[in-house]
């Protein structure tokens, strides 16, 4: 059971080109994306994290590298944090996605993402940073808020933002934040 600081990767070439991608390589962070991650990393300096765990996808690994440089914490990679599988739409443009739900479009289902993310959250201990993706973070937050896919539509996880959950109590302490709140910072013993 752990306190997990979930960070969505910064802006990447995939976002700029408006391409959906679950590929491990091919879409690095843009300069803006690197700045987004530096900004949030500085907010986390001084907090005693046990480790950074990253999705294997390039834009997440690069984000984790920046966080590691700023905070001095070591990185591990975990498959369970990877981007949603995009099926036949992998490396295709957003506008090519048809209407309809995830499964109808051949994207990885909500339940599939939820299973691996919840499994990940149950396996951790201490206080960790997890670098992942928009849908994966939203799915995990929704799980702890007891909301489904349609019910969690109002949870926006922008690039470079922070969401915090305590996997033991199920408490959600931040949703897509740009700033680490003062009281969270105090609670975590930050500068």
């Amino acid at each position, binding site marked *: 059971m752990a306190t997990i600081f979930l960070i969505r990767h910064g802006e990447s070439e995939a976002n700029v080109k408006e391409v959906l991608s679950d590929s491990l390589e091919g879409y690095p962070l843009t300069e803006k994306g690197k700045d987004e991650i530096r900004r949030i990393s500085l907010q986390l300096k001084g907090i005693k994290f046990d480790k950074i765990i990253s999705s294997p996808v390039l834009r997440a690994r690069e984000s984790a590298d920046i966080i590691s440089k700023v905070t001095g914490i070591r990185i591990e990679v975990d498959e369970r944090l990877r981007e949603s599988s995009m099926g036949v739409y992998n490396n295709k443009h957003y506008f090519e996605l048809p209407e309809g739900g995830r499964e109808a479009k051949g994207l990885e289902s909500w339940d599939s993402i939820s299973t691996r993310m919840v499994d990940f959250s149950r396996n951790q201990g201490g206080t960790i940073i997890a670098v992942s993706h928009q849908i994966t973070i939203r799915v995990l937050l929704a799980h702890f*808020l007891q*909301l*489904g*896919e*349609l*019910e*969690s*539509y*109002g*949870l*926006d*996880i*922008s690039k470079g*933002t922070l*969401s*915090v959950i305590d996997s033991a109590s199920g408490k*959600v*302490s*931040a*949703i*897509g*934040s*740009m*700033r*680490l*709140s*003062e*009281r*969270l910072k105090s609670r975590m013993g930050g500068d």
Partner: protein
Amino acid sequence: MKYAIFIRHGESESNVLTILASRNESYHLTNKGISQVKRTASQLHDLDIKSMYTSPVTRARDTGDIIAKELNLKPEVREEIRETDFGKSEGKLFPGKISELTDEERGDMGIESWSSHVNRMRSFFSGLRENSVIVSHGFLIKAFVSDLLQLNSDESYGLTIRFASITIVTIPDGKLLTIGSVVLSKELKEILGNKSGKHTGDF
């Protein structure tokens, strides 16, 4: 189980013009806003709603009128759920989001504080006794939801209440059933029950 359905008004002229408008104004819904609200209204069609309330602001009243027609209810106008008090910034251009400012920035602009929004909504919500639809504004609904989740302004940054979106809270517990949604799932509709008073699937 009783519930309160908070609907944000649809897109309006003041949103498109990025004008802060809460008093002495008549910015109506745009055509897009009307479509948004009609879609939301159809989601509520089969639900067993007893009361309707709306903010006095034009875009909320326009929204309320469309939903009222669908539900065959007459909306009661309530001051407590009026848009943010913009103070000296009323009528000014502001292309950003009020909810994303700090309380200090809001104070400098003469705009109502986060906690004031929370207090108004808590007070209004505590008076609800039956299944209700409440047409109000983005920042108000967001502040209320954040408070229910025990999150402050920084912590709830990613919480987004879109035009004509649906946020449902149980009465009196304040449990969130859906946040800023545009479509109600089949499962949720079963939990909410329908007009005949039956919960579908319940025997």
